[in-house]
C-alpha cells in the first residue's frame, strides 16, 4: 500500500468521520481475523478503520477510496468462515455495525427496513415486540448482520420453511465501487420481472461490488408454539427420503438438519453439561434427523404425531428418547441460551479450530459424499468432526452440507493442509454435480479455483464486477483469487 496515498485518504476520512476513522494499530488489530482457519502469526491488518453511520457517509468514504485507489473492505459480524471480511490487501476496513438503525417497521405490509449493520438478533428482538420475526437465522445471529447475510448468503436454521436471506429480501441499497448509491430490488413487492435482477447479484457478492447499507425484508408473524424432535435413521439417504416424504404428505416443517453420527457430539453440549457424558446411540443409527415444527398448538401437535408415524412406520426410524439431546441441538442452532460461563463454542475449540468444506450436493448423492469426505479428510490428516445437512430451500429436501473437521491452526503447514482438504472436497462436489460452497462463499479460499465450477461464467462475473467496481477497490482478491489453493489461469 502506498503510504502517501493512505495518509491523504485518512486525512480526508477524518474530515468526514472524526473519531470514527482511525489508523490506530490497536483498533486495526481487532479487525485482523474472521472465523476462517488461520495460522499463528497470520494477521491481515487494514490500514484504516472507519465507522459510517449512514449511506451518505458510505458514499463519501467510497469516493475517497476511489480517488486514491485504496481497497475498501466491508466488515460485519466477523464470523465468516471464508476470509471474506479480512483486509487481505490492506486498505480501508469499513466497520458496518455503525449502520445499526431500524428505519421502518411496516406492520401492514409485513416488512422491515433496516440499515445493514444491525445484527439479526437485535433486529428480531425488536420485531418480537410487534409479534413478528425475520426467519432468516444463521447460528451466528448474535454477531451476524443483515448486510453480512446478504453479502455472504449464509445459512439459516429455518431454511426448509422460509429459505435463505434472498427469500426475505425485497430491496437493498448498495454503494458501488463508483461511489454511487443504488437501491435495487422490487420495493416492497415480493417479485418483479422488469429489468435484470440486480438484487440477486448482491447476494453472496462478499463486498466485491459495493457496500450494502440498507435493506428491506419481508417478515412473518411469530408462531404460537414450537416443538422439536429428533429421529435416529438408518442412513443419511433415509434422512433425505424421509424429509421428502414428510413434505410430500403435506406437513409443514420449520427446520430440518440431518447429522451423521459423528457430528451429533458437537451439538449436544447441554446434554453433556447436564449428564456429564456423551449421548449413546444405537449401533444401527447412522444418522439423526432433527426437525422443528411451529404454528398453532393443535396443528403442531398433529404434525409432530404424524411425522413420527411416517418416520417410524415407513423408514424404520426411532424417535430420540432423551429430549435433552434434542434440546442440545436446538440450543446450538437457535436458542443459543447456554448456561452462564459455560458457552459451547469456546469450549469446543480450545485445542483445535472448527473448519468446514461447505458443499452443495444433489440429494441422491449424500452417502457417496459422506464416504468421500471420510477418505479425503483422512488423506489430508484432518480430524473428522462430522457432517451436517442443512435444508435451505422452502418445502423441499436440499443438501447444503457442512463437512466439518477440527483444524490444527498452530502452524502454517497444518492450516495449508486444511485448505488442501477444502480443495479436494470442492473437486468432489463438482464431480458429483454439486457446488463448492453453499453458505461460506468464495472468500479468500475459492477465488479463481471456482473456475472449475463456473467455467467461462467466471469471466462474465469479472466483467460484472468491472461495471460496479471499475478500479477494483471493493474487497479486492475475494472471489477471483485464492491465497490458499493453487489453480490454473482463468480461461481467456
Amino acid at each position, binding site marked *: 500500500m502506498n503510504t502517501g496515498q493512505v495518509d491523504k485518504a485518512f486525512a480526508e476520512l477524518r474530515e468526514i468521520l472524526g473519531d470514527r476513522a482511525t489508523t490506530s494499530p490497536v483498533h486495526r*488489530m481487532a479487525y485482523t481475523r474472521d472465523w476462517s482457519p488461520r495460522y499463528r502469526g497470520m494477521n491481515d491488518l487494514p490500514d484504516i478503520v472507519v465507522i459510517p453511520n449512514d449511506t451518505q457517509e458510505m458514499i463519501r468514504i467510497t469516493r475517497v477510496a476511489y480517488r486514491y485507489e485504496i481497497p475498501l473492505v466491508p466488515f460485519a459480524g466477523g464470523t465468516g468462515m471464508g476470509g471474506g471480511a479480512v483486509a487481505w490487501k490492506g486498505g480501508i476496513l469499513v466497520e458496518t455495525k455503525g449502520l445499526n438503525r431500524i428505519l421502518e417497521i411496516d406492520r401492514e405490509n409485513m416488512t422491515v427496513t433496516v440499515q445493514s449493520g444491525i445484527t439479526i438478533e437485535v433486529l428480531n428482538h425488536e420485531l418480537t415486540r410487534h409479534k413478528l420475526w425475520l426467519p432468516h437465522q444463521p447460528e451466528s445471529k448474535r*454477531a451476524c448482520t443483515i448486510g453480512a447475510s446478504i453479502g455472504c448468503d449464509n445459512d439459516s436454521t429455518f431454511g426448509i420453511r422460509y429459505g435463505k436471506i434472498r427469500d426475505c429480501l425485497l430491496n437493498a441499497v448498495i454503494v458501488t465501487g463508483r461511489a454511487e448509491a443504488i437501491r435495487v430490488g422490487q420495493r416492497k413487492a415480493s417479485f418483479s420481472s422488469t429489468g435484470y435482477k440486480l438484487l440477486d447479484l448482491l447476494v453472496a457478492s462478499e463486498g466485491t461490488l459495493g457496500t450494502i447499507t440498507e435493506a428491506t425484508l419481508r417478515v412473518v408473524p411469530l408462531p404460537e408454539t414450537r416443538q422439536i424432535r429428533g429421529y435416529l435413521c438408518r442412513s443419511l439417504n433415509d434422512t433425505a427420503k424421509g424429509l421428502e416424504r414428510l413434505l410430500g404428505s403435506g406437513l409443514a416443517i420449520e427446520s430440518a438438519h440431518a447429522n451423521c453420527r459423528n457430528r451429533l457430539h458437537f451439538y449436544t453440549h447441554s446434554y453433556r453439561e447436564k449428564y456429564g457424558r456423551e449421548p449413546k446411540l444405537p449401533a444401527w443409527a447412522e444418522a439423526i434427523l432433527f426437525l422443528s415444527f411451529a404454528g398453532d398448538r393443535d396443528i403442531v401437535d398433529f404434525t409432530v404425531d404424524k411425522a413420527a408415524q411416517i418416520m417410524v412406520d415407513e423408514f424404520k426410524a426411532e424417535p430420540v428418547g432423551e429430549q435433552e439431546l434434542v434440546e442440545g441441538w436446538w440450543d446450538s442452532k437457535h436458542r443459543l441460551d447456554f448456561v452462564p460461563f459455560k458457552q459451547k463454542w469456546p469450549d469446543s475449540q480450545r485445542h483445535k479450530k472448527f473448519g468446514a468444506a461447505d458443499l452443495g450436493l444433489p440429494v441422491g448423492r449424500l452417502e457417496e459424499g459422506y464416504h468421500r469426505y471420510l477418505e479425503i479428510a483422512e488423506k489430508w490428516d484432518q480430524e473428522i468432526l462430522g457432517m451436517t445437512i442443512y435444508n435451505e430451500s422452502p418445502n423441499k429436501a436440499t443438501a447444503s452440507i457442512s463437512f466439518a473437521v477440527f483444524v490444527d491452526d498452530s502452524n502454517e503447514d497444518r492450516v495449508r493442509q486444511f485448505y488442501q482438504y477444502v480443495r479436494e472436497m470442492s473437486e468432489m462436489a463438482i464431480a458429483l454435480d454439486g457446488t463448492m460452497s453453499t453458505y461460506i462463499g468464495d472468500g479468500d479460499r475459492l477465488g479463481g479455483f471456482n473456475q472449475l465450477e463456473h467455467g467461462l461464467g467466471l469471466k462474465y462475473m469479472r466483467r460484472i464486477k468491472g461495471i460496479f467496481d471499475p478500479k477494483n477497490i471493493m474487497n479486492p482478491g475475494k472471489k477471483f483469487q485464492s491465497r490458499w489453493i493453487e489453480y490454473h489461469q482463468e480461461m481467456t
Partner: protein
Amino acid sequence: MKRKNLRDYVEDIYTCNRTRCGFCREQCPVYHIKGYETYSCRGKMLVGRGLIENTLSPSMEMAQILDQCLLCGLCQARCALNTLDIITSMRQQMVLDGFSTPIHRGNVERILKEGYLLDARADTVREGQVPLYVGCVYRSKPRELATALSVLERLDIHPLIGDETCCGYIVEATGFGKEFEAVQEQFKKTYQQFNAPEILTLCPTCTATLKEKYGLPVKHAIVAVAEQLRRRQGGVKSLGFRATYHDPCHLGRMVGIFEEPREILRQLDIQLVEMENNRYFSTCCGGGGGIHAVDPDLSIEIAKNRVRDAIRVGVETIVTVCPTCEPTLLRAAARLAGEVGIFVDVQSLWDLLDKALE
C-alpha cells in the same frame, strides 16, 4: 498462589481467536457506545494476540483502551473463558511496561500508604457479635452506612466492626498486580476477623474480592436480612409501588446473589418489573472497573443506557444495593431526565428497608 501474567493466558486468547462467536460483543456496554470492536472482549482478545506475538507494542493508547473496560463480566457470562482475568492481565502488562494511568497509580499509592481508597468519614465502631467488613466506599458514606447498620440492628443482627484496610480490588483491577500483593499483605495483617466462621459484607465488590482473593467465608448482609425477614414472617411496612431491580455486577454475576434482594422487595410489597437484561445478563451501571476515574463521560453514557432499560419497562424507580451503582445511576437518571423529560429515581434497598422497618 502465583500471580498470572498475560503469557499464562496464551491458549485462552487463542481459543477466543479461533472461536470468534461474538456472543460477548453486542451487549458490551462500552462497545455499544464506542463502536470499534477493540472495546469488546472479542476485539481485546485479538489485541492480546498482538501483544503475545509481538505484532503490537504496548502503548499509552492501548492502556487507555483497556482502562475503558468495566470489568463487569457480562462477556464472561456469555463465554466459557475467564475473560476478566485475561483483560486484567493485559492491564497488568501495560503497568509493567510503564503505561499506567496516573489517576489509577495515585489511587494505588494512597491505598498502600493510608490503607483506604477514600476518606473514611463514617463512624464504624460497633461491638456486636457478627463480624462485618465495611469497605472503603461505605466508610466514606456516613449516612448510607448508618442506615445499613441500623437496618441490621433492627433485625437483631449486631455487627462487630474492627480495624480493616482496603480489600484492594481496584488495585488489581487497574493492573497493579505486584502492588496488589502488598495490599493483600496489608489487609491480612490488619483485618481482625480473618478466622471468623462468617463475615458479613456491605459492598458487592468487597464481597467478591474477599471471597475470591482471600478465601474468606463472606455473606453479603442483604442475604442475612432476607434470612431474618423469612424468620420474622412479616413485621415490615408495605411500601406499595412499582420498581425494577438492578443487579450489581459483583453481587449478581460474580457472587450469584440474585433472588434475595428480589425476595425482600416482594416482602416490602414492591411490584417488581424486570428489565430485559437482568440477573446473569444484567448490564453494568457504568461505574465498574475504575472507568469512572478515567472517563466519566463514558461512565455516564453507559449509566444512561441502563436507566433507559428501566424507562423501557415503564417504571419510575430503580432499586439496587451497591454503593457504586446507586450514585452512578442516579447521576445518569438526572442527566437523562434533562434529555428525555422522564426522571427515574434510584433508591437503595437499605433505604427502603429503613422505611419499612420504622
